[in-house]
């Protein structure tokens, strides 16, 4: 009995020692690497949660967290101050400046070159916007694998019923809105509250031919004044909602989806939700944003981008790049693009399953190739607040001189930009 106990004890000790020593030996084969990735939305995380990546790279363990895009920059800077920044963080492309200025980002030029030489096909799958939106001042810090443009969206059945042709410029959009807003319908639905950054406003601005000088929007230009007049007309001519100043994105999207609005500016990612209520083609359709009359050659379609950027605090830039390359694989990104935001990985946009799930995709294929990123300025957050002030001033004073409003707020924007 005593011998049995003794042997049992020895066996237990050996097992314990083995359990303690095994990880040390295992680590000897290759360093165990922990990568932390902050995604801006839960929806951006691939469904496989990096399972295939872990199988291919058993020495790399990816931990994901969701830090909303709106607070990703602030949280990254705070985490960096505490020495706990993630290896990769997803941020809005127009917020790259603050992180770059604080030297919080890693220069991935060499890693991109390495990728191009190792896997030219994979590297070549990406649209130019994927690289440009992940760069600041010419230095690449990450990849924008998802981009989201806003499209001009309208009710085909209502237009047909009223005998109105599909608008080809913003004057015609307003005129269609005037005709279709009778009987309690909203002619053109858009947000006017301060709940969001003015990205819808800037999308209109760019489509109307708006220009940026040194990444500063020129609100006092012809396009800027026209834009403010457009907002004023929405209120003055009862085209927009009477509550436009209180409306956020949820309100105006719901107005269109619930059949209360004739026209709206809706993001590509919301189209699947619209399709659940209305039939594409028969009841609704979309197209790239039309130009300002007389400025057709200046019309551009703006896209928001949410690049994954590598932070300066990463101790494993090569492994971080492997994770980015994994996220950029067509089979991985397609799953996300099918249920959420479109992608810059071009083969996905042409795949049969994508077109099958998003029947409107072919109508926008040409526009996708010409999307322009929203220019970002280091003072972007403050400039956004002034743009919201200008927009709300125009909405509150529909008969005021739009030129004066534009000049007042342009002076504030210029003062911020010159600091």
């Amino acid at each position, binding site marked *: 009995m005593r011998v049995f106990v003794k042997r049992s004890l020895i066996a237990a000790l050996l097992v314990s020692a083995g359990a303690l020593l095994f990880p040390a030996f295992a680590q000897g084969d290759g360093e165990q690497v922990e990568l932390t990735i902050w995604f801006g939305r839960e929806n951006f995380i691939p469904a496989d949660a990096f399972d295939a990546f872990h199988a291919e790279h058993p020495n790399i363990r990816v931990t994901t967290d969701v830090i909303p895009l709106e607070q990703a920059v602030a949280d990254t800077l705070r985490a960096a101050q505490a020495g706990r920044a993630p290896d990769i963080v997803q941020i809005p492309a127009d917020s790259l400046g603050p992180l770059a200025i604080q030297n919080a980002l890693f220069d991935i030029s060499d890693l991109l070159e390495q990728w191009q030489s190792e896997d030219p096909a994979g590297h070549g799958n990406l649209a130019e916007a994927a690289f440009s939106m992940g760069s600041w001042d010419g230095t690449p810090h990450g990849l924008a694998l998802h981009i989201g443009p806003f499209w001009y969206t309208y009710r085909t059945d209502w237009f047909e019923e009223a005998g109105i042709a599909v608008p080809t410029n913003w004057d015609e959009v307003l005129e269609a809105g005037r005709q279709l807003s009778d009987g309690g319908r909203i002619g053109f639905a858009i947000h006017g*509250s301060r709940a969001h950054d003015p990205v819808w406003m800037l999308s209109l601005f760019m489509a109307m031919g708006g220009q940026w000088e040194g990444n500063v929007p020129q609100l006092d230009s012809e396009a800027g004044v026209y834009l403010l007049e457009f907002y004023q007309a929405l209120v003055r001519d009862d085209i927009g909602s009477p509550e436009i100043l209180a409306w956020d994105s949820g309100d105006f999207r719901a107005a269109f989806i619930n059949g209360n609005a004739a026209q709206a500016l809706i993001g590509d990612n919301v189209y699947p939700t619209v399709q659940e209520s209305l039939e594409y083609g028969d009841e609704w359709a979309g197209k790239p944003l039309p130009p300002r009359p007389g400025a057709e050659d200046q019309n551009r379609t703006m896209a928001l981008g949410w690049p994954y950027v590598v932070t300066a605090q990463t101790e494993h830039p090569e492994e971080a790049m492997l994770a980015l390359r994994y996220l950029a694989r067509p089979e991985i990104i397609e799953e996300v693009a099918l249920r959420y935001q479109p992608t810059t990985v071009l083969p996905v946009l042409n795949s049969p399953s994508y077109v099958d799930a998003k029947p409107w995709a072919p109508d926008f294929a040409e526009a996708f190739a010409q999307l322009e990123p929203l220019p970002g300025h280091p003072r972007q957050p403050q400039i956004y607040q002034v743009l919201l002030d200008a927009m709300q001033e125009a909405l509150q004073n529909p008969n005021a001189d739009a030129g004066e409003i534009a000049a007042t707020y342009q002076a504030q924007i210029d003062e911020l930009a010159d600091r």
Partner: protein
Amino acid sequence: MAVDNIATRELPAARRRRKWGEILVPYLLVSPAILFVAGVLGYAVVNGFVTSLFRVDIWTIGRPFVGLGNYLALFRDPNFLNSLTRSLIFVAGTIVFGLALSMTYALLLQAVRSARGFLRSVALIPYLVSGIAAAIMWRFLFTGEASLVQATLESLGFGQMTWLGHPDRALAVVTLANVWFISPFATLILLGGLQSVDQQLYDAAAIDGANWFHSFLNVTLPGILPMLSLSLMWLSFASFNMFDIILPLTGGGPGRSTEVLAVYMYQLAFRNLDYSSASAVMMVLLVINLTLSLLYLRVSRVR
């Protein structure tokens, strides 16, 4: 005799020890709580004050010392002055309506004889709802197709009225929502005060021929003055710091008409990423709150 002498010599010393013990023990017992509060709040306040003396934002490399520069810039900023004005209107409105509401409800609760516990629980419901949920509820009340307020007004023959899209009405709505949200706690404080007033004083006043109003003015109010002061403090603090109802309800708009100091501070810190200016606003809020609390305490002591 010798024993008596020793006893008489030792007694004062023992009493002194006991006396010191009686004085020190309560402080000793509350010291963990004080240390905890000082650690949590004190650190935030000290760190906030220090940050307000430096330039800490996303455009500046390092943390250059600017002294009172952030405060001077703040008081020259029209957006800050607008927020300060809006805050004062918002807090004054909340105090007037909130105190009237909570006093009325506390008096009713004190007067009812049955179901007092149930009614007290009902009074607390708004306080138990989260700020975001309250904001969404108030938003549904005033905007959208299913707006109850809009439907009621239209059924009464009024035309369509914009509430959250109109600067003055939006401020009125956020003030009402705030009153609804924070008054229940003031009601509980006042009810506690009312229950502590000696019934014999009311009986004596009745014998002297005092009516309800006289009794309220001369017995109730002086009796609950410390609790009244505490209620005022709560209503002021909670309103000056109010943020979680306003942001989802109006976002500070339209046109910054509901951008009170707490919302402005949030915008500075988390949208503009200008931490030092936000810290300066925090210190201004702290000074306002401290001044008001000293004022309330002084008024209650004068009586």
